[in-house]
């Protein structure tokens, strides 16, 4: 099926009837996913937004439950459920792959995080393939096809003037069914997207096992500022902190994004901090991206979107790290984990 780019806007208006539709847009100069409505002009020309779409599933500050004292003086806890029907229209294949990583974290291993699970069920993902890539994109090297997203509900492959519509899940088929007014029959060839940046990932995971005390981390972390920019613009970073807002007797407990780069992230009450210096934190972050997550869930936590390469104040570049690791002559010690 074909969807002509001209009738994107009427399609969005029809979809936005009962639901919140989020589209990539520039709001006050910041490229992020904004609620489609008046005053928001979609920016589908953007290769990718600065702020990742993880904000829809895992908001930066999310109220978990409200507690207050009920009639007979006992504490009462009432959960918030702010999840509602949402559509993210125009998400890119690399961000779709990041949603797979977030699903693994929040929905598996013995505990299902119901805040994330509720939001995830009610989210319809319409992924748009990339016809052109930015200089910092390296998704193909991380196993992501710029024109395909297997776990998206609907895949719109960019074919120049039109999109090729592929409904990939029952939910997607149901949605495409009522797109009849905008879609016509026919087929089109998706535009091949060449990436200027590529890294060689094979062997890196195993090599990292033996590199824990290698000076490579020293040279890398010495120039890092330890700010939280890379973790907050990264689509797959999922660390959070839990705290509460009080108002005399009642209050709200919320969870909010946290960054492994902050100094008090692992600071214990007794004053002991297992990761006191920049070296341990930077090493932990990149090991988590390239090795730890792979060992635990079997997929890399870096999807190659290039946001951290783009936004790092000191241009500390994960692709150069991968190249340096490749160049290291440490014999890969395959750890049987």
């Amino acid at each position, binding site marked *: 099926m074909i969807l002509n780019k001209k009738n994107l806007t009427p399609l969005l208006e029809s979809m936005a009837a009962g639901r919140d539709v989020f589209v990539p847009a520039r709001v006050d100069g910041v490229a992020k996913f904004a609620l489609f409505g008046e005053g928001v002009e979609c920016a589908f020309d953007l290769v990718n937004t600065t702020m990742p779409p993880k904000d829809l599933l895992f908001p930066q500050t999310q*109220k978990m439950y409200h507690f207050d004292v009920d009639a007979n003086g006992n504490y009462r806890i009432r959960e918030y459920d702010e999840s509602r029907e949402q559509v993210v229209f125009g998400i890119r294949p690399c961000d779709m792959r990041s949603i797979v990583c977030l699903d693994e974290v929040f929905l598996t291993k013995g505990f299902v995080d119901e805040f994330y699970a509720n939001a995830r069920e009610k989210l319809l993902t319409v992924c748009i393939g990339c016809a052109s890539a930015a200089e910092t994109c390296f998704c193909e090297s991380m196993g992501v096809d710029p024109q395909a997203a297997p776990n998206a509900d609907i895949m719109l492959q960019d074919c120049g003037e039109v999109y090729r519509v592929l409904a990939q899940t029952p939910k997607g088929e149901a949605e495409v069914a009522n797109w009849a007014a905008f879609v016509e029959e026919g087929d089109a060839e998706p535009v091949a997207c060449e990436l200027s940046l590529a890294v060689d990932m094979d062997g890196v995971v195993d090599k990292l096992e033996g590199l824990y005390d290698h000076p490579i981390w020293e040279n890398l972390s010495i120039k890092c500022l330890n700010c939280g920019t890379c973790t907050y613009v990264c689509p797959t970073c999922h660390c959070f902190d839990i705290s509460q807002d*009080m*108002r*005399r007797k*009642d*209050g*709200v407990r919320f969870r909010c994004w946290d960054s492994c780069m902050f100094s008090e992230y692992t600071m214990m009450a007794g004053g002991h901090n297992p990761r006191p210096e920049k070296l341990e934190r930077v090493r932990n972050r990149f090991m988590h991206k390239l090795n730890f997550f792979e060992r635990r869930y079997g997929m890399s936590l870096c999807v190659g979107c290039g946001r951290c390469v783009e936004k790092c104040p000191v241009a500390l570049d994960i692709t150069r790290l991968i190249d340096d690791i490749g160049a290291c002559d440490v014999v890969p010690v395959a750890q049987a984990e």
Partner: protein
Amino acid sequence: MSVVETNEAAAQVPENWEPKIIAFCCHWCTYTGADLAGLNRMNYPANVRVLRIPCSGRMNPQYVIEALNKGCDGVLVCGCHPGDCHYVTGNYFARRRMMIFKRLLEYEGLEPDRFQVRWISGAEAGKFRDTVMSVVEQVRALGPLNLTREIPYFELPAVPDGEEAFDAVPEEVVPEEVSA
């Protein structure tokens, strides 16, 4: 419940709205002046909550922002007259810091009357009362502070109005018999 007050919501004035004002008073001069005002049975509106600080030099700008975020509509900082400071130079530093901070807050859109600084000595009980009255009137005229404040703001018990509003001595609380 944490109340998200956006700009429009706070614009209309609820009918029995009373301005909430915090006065940071320096322990040696203004606090004594306020005490003297109480001694002389001078009546001033109870909208002002007095907080004692050792010296106006101890006035941290963070207290002002926290007060505004937590729900106050006006902040008053009082200290000793320059030269009277118990710590000799406390109010000189405070004068500079507060001048800069006042301009910064006005630059950020806070109405000038909401953040005021006064030098009030221990003997000027009248000046303390007049300052408090004028601040309360000015802030009442400005209405509620319409900054976005997602921190839950304090809802202190409604201020008793009418003439017994000023005699703030609570009557003896008679414990009724505790039922079984």
